[in-house]
């Protein structure tokens, strides 16, 4: 009897920490085959490469916890950055030529991201359509609008404030890593320690009963999609700062990477269950796979196979362990 209970407790903790265990296993695997994998600078590389995905995953976690989804974030990033570029670019350069971009890029980019996220929520609230449909609609419309506004020329940056976020280093680590930690901390505190977080979880548990018991579904939707838009804008500012250019392909496929990170991190697409730390670890796991395969010079097409298999394994383990705990 006691043995059975201990066993169950052990499985429960295994379920909780299965992702960390998996991450450690994969790191050990790569470290054993690639010497430069396990160094401090490579750690910084991995974390700074994961920062954008991880930050967007924080916002996405909010959306998925209320049992909805946001597939517009790649297009949203492209549009928010295009708006910010238009406002903040120092005029004078010809099309395609590198130009300086001033610090207005930050407030405008963040505001645009937040606003576009709220547009998603308002569409769902006012038109009463499904979240997947609403964000599918904005997926098309946002990218179309971005291209219409700024065209497809590369917008490379001269050294200017736009690169500050992507390229600054503090105490030997990249600034995006600190931003990631800060966003994760704020996201986790709001989710775990405030009424807003409790509402979000409750709504995800059951949207219908949540509305019947008087939970503010419409307002919480604004919070979730607003957070998703804002986090995506931060991620966008990091990416353009890191790569030093704004291209028309920015954000294509980003939604799938971020959703995968969140799901691998143990957040249920059925809503009501999930953590910020899980999503961050999920994003890091994905980058670790890329980074490790990169360092051992693996074939490019293997990447998606590995990611798909890991996604399924992670989810199957999670589901099986969870079932075991409940029984």
């Amino acid at each position, binding site marked *: 009897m006691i043995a059975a209970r201990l066993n169950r407790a052990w499985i429960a903790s295994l379920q909780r920490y299965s992702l960390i265990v998996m991450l450690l296993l994969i790191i050990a695997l790569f470290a054993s085959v690639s010497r430069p994998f396990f160094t401090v600078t*490579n750690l910084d590389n991995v974390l700074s490469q994961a920062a954008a995905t991880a930050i967007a995953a924080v916002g996405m976690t909010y959306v998925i916890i209320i049992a909805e989804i946001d597939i517009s974030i790649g297009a949203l990033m492209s549009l928010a950055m295009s708006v910010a570029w238009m406002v903040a670019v120092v005029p004078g350069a010809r099309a395609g030529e590198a130009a300086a971009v001033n610090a207005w890029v930050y407030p405008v980019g963040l505001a645009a991201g937040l606003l576009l996220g709220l547009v998603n929520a308002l569409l769902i609230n006012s038109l009463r359509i499904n979240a997947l449909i609403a964000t599918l609609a904005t997926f098309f419309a946002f990218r179309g609008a971005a291209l219409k506004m700024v065209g497809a020329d590369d917008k*490379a940056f001269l050294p200017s404030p736009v690169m500050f976020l992507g390229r600054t280093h503090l105490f030997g680590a990249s600034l995006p890593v600190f931003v990631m930690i800060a966003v994760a901390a704020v996201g986790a505190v709001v989710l775990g320690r405030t009424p807003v977080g409790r509402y979000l979880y409750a709504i995800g548990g059951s949207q219908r009963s949540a509305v019947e018991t008087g939970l503010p579904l419409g307002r919480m939707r604004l919070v979730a999609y607003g957070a998703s838009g804002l986090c995506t804008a931060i991620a966008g500012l990091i990416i353009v700062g890191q790569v030093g250019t704004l*291209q028309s392909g920015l954000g294509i496929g980003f939604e799938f990477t971020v959703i995968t990170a969140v799901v691998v991190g143990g957040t249920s697409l059925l809503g009501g269950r999930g953590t910020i730390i899980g999503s961050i670890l999920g994003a890091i796991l994905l980058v670790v796979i890329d980074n490790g395969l990169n360092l051992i010079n693996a074939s490019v097409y293997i990447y998606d196979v590995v990611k798909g298999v890991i996604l399924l394994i992670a989810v199957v383990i999670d589901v099986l362990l969870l079932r075991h705990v409940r029984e």
Partner: protein
Amino acid sequence: MIPGMHSRMLLAGATLLGGLALAGIPAHAADNKPGAGMHICISLDKVNASREGQIRLWKQAAQELGVPKVTIEVADEDAQRQSSQVETCLAQRVNGVIEIPWDDQAVLQDIRRARAAHIPLVGMDQAPADVGTIDYFSGSNPYADGLKLGEELVKLVGDKPTKVADIQGALDQYNGIERDKGFKAGIAGHPNIRIVADIPTDWHPEPALAGMENALEANPDLGAVFVASDGMLPPVWSALQKVGRYTKVGAPKHVIVLSIDGDPQGCAGVKSDYMDAGVAQPFAEMTYDTMKMVIEMAKTGKEPTGKDRVARIPGLMYTPANFSKASAGVWGCSE
């Protein structure tokens, strides 16, 4: 002045001959041009910086040749969409179609349909899988472009042992594959030059940044980087800055940078002495040739024969040393 000027002048000669037939008729100046009254449809695989440059050059060519109406359709990386758009053009009975195919096999179907409709279709930039099936194709010579930069690297480093990062394009496209092959052929036979990282990017800057950072991590003594497209230069600069090696040509810690395209970033890189050599794609010639040829085929109903069916125009090498002379032929410098 421009290397392609030569072929342009030849074509201008041909135009003159064609124009003679019209010379007797007094008419509005534009009507004397070969493309008067024509509607040309351009079907693109996608839009990006190169396509924007090409579109501008096509519009110039259309103006020079007197084409009043150019329609541009973009398939956004969707083969079915492109086939539909080409059919839409054919259904409108345009005078000719210029296509940059997304799918090098599916374009064969477009060629067949255009032929059935008796409307000329010419290809540009990305060749059909079987280039023998298209009436006219004008493209760069990606293998020769890569080869030139490989040979330039050999000249630059001599016998010095050099580790190289190879930032590749999309490996499912002829241009991406051939540029890479050419570069590798250029350094073959020089065991002191060794490629230590192959980084496929699908032409996107984010994987280029991650890959370059990882390459510098694994090889702190990296000596050179070959970049398959100028679109990936900004992330390369970024990664070099991170390790304090973003320096001018000739500085002690300088990493040799070689890149293909000749877009505004490549032009600026060479102009400012941060990049050692670039190869500019012959967009001006390619766009002019295709526009010219499709007009001619529409007029005469005859397609070019033999060797004239495929133009593989080699790119133009430009370096800090020859920049003042060469820059006029680099599309990213002059637009």
